[in-house]
């Protein structure tokens, strides 16, 4: 899932400064399950912004709405009326949602209330950890299901480096050494010989390094009239 966290209130306030009617738009998918931009969070933020603006002596009208998925046109059209009423839209979607809102309503100022951080998972309630970098060419079959592109601080394919100690990365005791995890996993599976092969340089073209990416599935496309 996409994991994001709310920007500090001060920063959000500066982004909405001057607007009289602000609409906070939450999203019901990823940001709901990482507790940063769902219904509750949108309500709490709207309330906090109202209160802060009142304490400041310059009250702002802040309302909120939530769409099921902020990254799909059909879903965000559902709040078209509320958006029309507002001076400014504060999106609590991930970076994709913010851009979808901005593109669908180009005449509106749309600002982000979240910092989209990474693709990851909740390893326990309240703790999310990065797992995937969308390199576009998944090599998890070679590494026992642990990704060195996302989880090794140096993205090594022939790790570990000399800084791996006690199972953690040299950058922090709170960061696992991905290669220790890979080693342990493959050892337990009796497949350590995979680590003796020298992995060649990665073809980064399928990554962001090759330019912004796009996938087209002709088998799924319909022409505008709906016919095949």
């Amino acid at each position, binding site marked *: 899932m996409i994991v994001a966290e709310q920007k*500090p*209130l*001060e920063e959000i306030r500066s982004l909405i400064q001057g607007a009289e009617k602000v609409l906070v738009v939450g999203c019901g998918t990823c940001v709901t399950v990482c507790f940063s931009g769902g219904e*509750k969070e949108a*309500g*709490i933020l709207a*309330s*906090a*912004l*109202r*209160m*802060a603006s*009142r*304490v*400041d002596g310059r*009250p702002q009208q802040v309302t909120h709405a939530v769409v099921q998925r902020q990254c799909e046109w059909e879903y965000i059209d559902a709040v078209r009326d509320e958006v029309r009423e507002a001076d400014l839209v504060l999106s609590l979607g991930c970076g994709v949602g913010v851009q979808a809102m901005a593109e669908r309503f180009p005449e509106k100022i749309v600002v982000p209330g979240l910092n989209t951080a990474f693709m990851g998972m909740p390893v326990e309630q309240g703790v999310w950890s990065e797992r995937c970098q969308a390199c576009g060419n998944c090599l998890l079959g070679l590494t026992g299901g642990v990704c060195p592109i996302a989880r090794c601080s140096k993205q090594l394919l022939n790790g570990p480096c000399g800084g791996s100690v006690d199972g953690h990365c040299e950058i922090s005791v709170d960061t696992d050494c991905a290669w220790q995890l890979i080693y342990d996993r493959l050892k337990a599976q009796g497949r350590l010989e995979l680590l003796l092969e020298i992995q060649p340089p990665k073809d980064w073209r399928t990554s962001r390094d090759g330019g912004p990416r796009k996938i087209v599935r002709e088998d799924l496309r319909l022409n505008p009239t709906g016919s095949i």
Partner: protein
Amino acid sequence: MGELGFEPRIVALCCHYCAYAAADLAGALRLQYPDTIHVVKIPCTGDLDVRDVLDAFESGADGVMIAGCMEGDCHYQTGNVRARKRVDRTRQVLAEAGVGGERIRMYHLSSAMGARWAEVAREMDAHIRQLGPSPLRATARRPSVET
């Protein structure tokens, strides 16, 4: 009579199993406690919705107290532990919004503690009097009808 003629408006969210029962007992024992405290019963403090607390402040409350079971004795096991964390978070939101994080407090009681209820009620009242009216008092609005 409060300082500068200010009568605090304090909302007390009390859990059914312990705190509310303690407040009820205080009443039955005819123990005196300030009438600035408005008691609201909730099933468990673990059910606390931060939006309800913020709503109270937006509607003009000067303070909110959350009262639940003794630590380790929550009827629903960990409700009051979750509540404590949620209260800490709400405190932060209130501080950042400029309303004041000191205006929310959490207390733990058992259902037999009628006297303790009266004591914490007096304590909260005195605390809020000392803080003064909420900065939102001047521009209070009607409570929302959503909840």
